């Protein structure tokens, strides 16, 4: 099936049920009818959504859709023209800022400062310091493989390394709410994987995470719920698995040993070389097809119900709206 191992899923389910018990119905973020224009450009129009405590929430859309504007309004860096934002149950206050970790899209560090000094300064601005913070910094640097570079100046680091340091700085003060704006942008596959694992780890620790990205397919595996936006408007909002089920095409990917004869309920069969794509007639379920194949003693190497990637869903949604 998908690349995510079962154990991972299992953990995820366990921790999720635990979390729901812990903060029943609590909302990390409530955004209602928020609008913001810059001159003639509407960066956000009547956007409403909620982020539940302990979930990974994806803010998804193409470049220039208004994701960063929405995030900046969450952080009160920009004030909305209208609408209301509540963070951790109240309008953003200075004291609340200590409970939030924010990795902005436009990021940088003090070039002349060492990694460890940068981390201790930024975390002290979040109200944490002392040996516990230092210990946590060491652990996080070790996890990201940056520990050998802790006494280097930031200007000596590569761009990717600096990005890891920024991520560490974002979560060093152990925030309840983590907001990541395009966290994987510009990272190599190895570091992307590592960062994703760290984000999953944060969720296990019951943190609430907002993940904003234009690389929609990158975050499918992580997100519980998503808000998809385009040109400042919300186009799709809800549980990711429900959305994917809603936009499921009636097709199945399959690869088998030997020849694949005609199957009941399959309208067309495309040969993609390594695998076949079967388009079902709409009345037959994928399970029926699989059972049929097993009954015919066909060796099935791969069987996957095709759910369209988010990018495809996005295109379908946007096209559907404009038509």
């Amino acid at each position: 099936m998908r690349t995510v191992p079962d154990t991972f899923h299992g953990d995820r389910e366990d921790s999720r049920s635990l979390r729901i018990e812990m903060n029943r119905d609590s909302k990390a973020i409530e955004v209602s009818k928020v609008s913001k224009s810059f001159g003639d450009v509407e960066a956000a129009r009547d956007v409403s959504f909620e982020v539940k405590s302990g979930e990974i929430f994806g803010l998804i859309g193409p470049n220039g859709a208004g994701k960063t504007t929405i995030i900046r309004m969450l952080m009160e860096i920009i004030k909305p023209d209208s609408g209301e934002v509540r963070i951790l149950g109240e309008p953003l206050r200075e004291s609340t800022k200590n409970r939030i970790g924010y990795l902005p899209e436009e990021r940088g560090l003090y070039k002349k400062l060492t990694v460890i000094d940068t981390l201790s300064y930024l975390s002290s601005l979040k109200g944490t310091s002392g040996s516990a913070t230092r210990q946590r910094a060491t652990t996080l640097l070790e996890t990201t493989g940056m520990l050998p570079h802790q006494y280097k100046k930031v200007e000596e680091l590569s761009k990717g390394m600096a990005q890891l340091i920024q991520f560490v700085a974002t979560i060093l003060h152990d925030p309840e709410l983590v907001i990541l704006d395009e966290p994987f942008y510009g990272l190599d596959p190895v570091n992307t994987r590592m960062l994703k694992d760290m984000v999953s780890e944060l969720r296990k620790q019951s943190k609430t995470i907002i993940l904003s990205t234009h690389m929609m397919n990158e975050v499918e595996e992580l997100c519980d719920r998503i808000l998809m936006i385009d040109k400042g408007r919300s186009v799709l909002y809800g549980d990711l698995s429900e959305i994917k089920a809603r936009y499921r095409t009636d097709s199945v990917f399959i690869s088998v040993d030997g020849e694949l004869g005609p199957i009941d309920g399959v309208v067309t069969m495309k040969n993609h070389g390594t695998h076949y794509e079967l388009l079902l007639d709409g009345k037959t379920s994928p399970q029926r097809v699989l059972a049929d194949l097993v009954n015919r003693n066909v060796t099935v190497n791969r069987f996957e119900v095709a759910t369209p990637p988010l990018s495809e869903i996005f295109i379908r949604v946007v096209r559907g709206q404009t038509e």
Partner: protein
Amino acid sequence: MNKTLIIFRHELLVTLKRKSFILVTLAAPLLMLVGYGIYQGVQSWYHPSELETKTIGYVDQAGGFDEYTSVGATFVRYPGEEAARQSLLSGEINEYFVIPSDYIRTGLITRYTMKRELEPPSQTMDSIRKFLISNLIGEETSPEVLERTKTPIVLSSIRLDETGEEMEGQNPFIQFFMPYIFALLLMFSIFFASGYLLQSISEEKDNRLMEVLLSSVSARQLLVGKVLGLGAAGLAQILIWIISLWVLVDVGLASIPGLSTASMPPGLIVLAIVYYLLGYLLFAVIMAVLGSIGTTARESQSWSSIVAMTAVLPMFFLTLIVENPSHAVAVAFTLIPTTSSVTAMMRLPTEGIPAWQLALSLSLLVAAIFFCMWAGAKIFRACLLMYGKRPSLTQIVRYVREA
């Protein structure tokens, strides 16, 4: 720890560790030392030649002018212009002059020299004057009167206060140099601190750290922490300079008349420090806000020079203010917050400032600082994230009203 304090400490430490800061801080006293060395060298080079006695030739067409020797010059009579010219060309005499026959009526004298000079050296002129006076009236009067005629005045001025008591002061150093030095110090502090503030804010704008900082602290905390932190660094720099200047004065400059005897009343020193700190704070806040408005460090820099010019403005009126401290211009400069510090530095040592002006000027200055902090934090906040886009004036006014 208070977040403003954390920013203050961070900015202070980072600046103190900056290489350029250390270099400039150390270079200034070194330059002073080198300058003092050059001054001493030039002095010892120059003095002997000044004491040299000049030989000046003259051609007496009017008649009755006898040869004469005074301090610094010996006058030698020549029968005719041709002979005098030959002596000058051969180097026997330094210069010569011709007293024409109608000298008594016109006073006209023609002087010949081979030296290029801007104007006749005062010492030579003095010698010639004394030579002429001796010859004109020397025989008609007593030697004492003759001497008095040559040097008619040796002046000593004493200032009286309202009760008729003699006052100390009338010290040209305190009257003129003290205000000058204080005003210069303040200006330097403003320029340097503004430089550090602009650099630091532009850096955070350029490297996009602003958003991270604003997600942790408020714009006001950031502004105040920065102004105070970088301000403290600037003050430390000035303090180091003052101390090294002090040492230099103690070691070397005590020989210069006036410097060694100069002492300031303590009340004046306190007021000077208060004005210094307040003036400094006002400009630091203004500079920080300017740093946030400009799109690039260079643009902010040019804006800041315009603002810094207002601090320099009273310097153009230095003579007027020092000589005439109650003039309307001086009073106006004392009350306007951006010029009050430098002007007060000038007026305090001379005549003092009337109590009402002092009170009003200080209140206005403090009010201006609070206003700039208040409005500044709003502009600062609104402008910090506007990368590559400079707000218009109407936009800035809107930020202040809205935010």
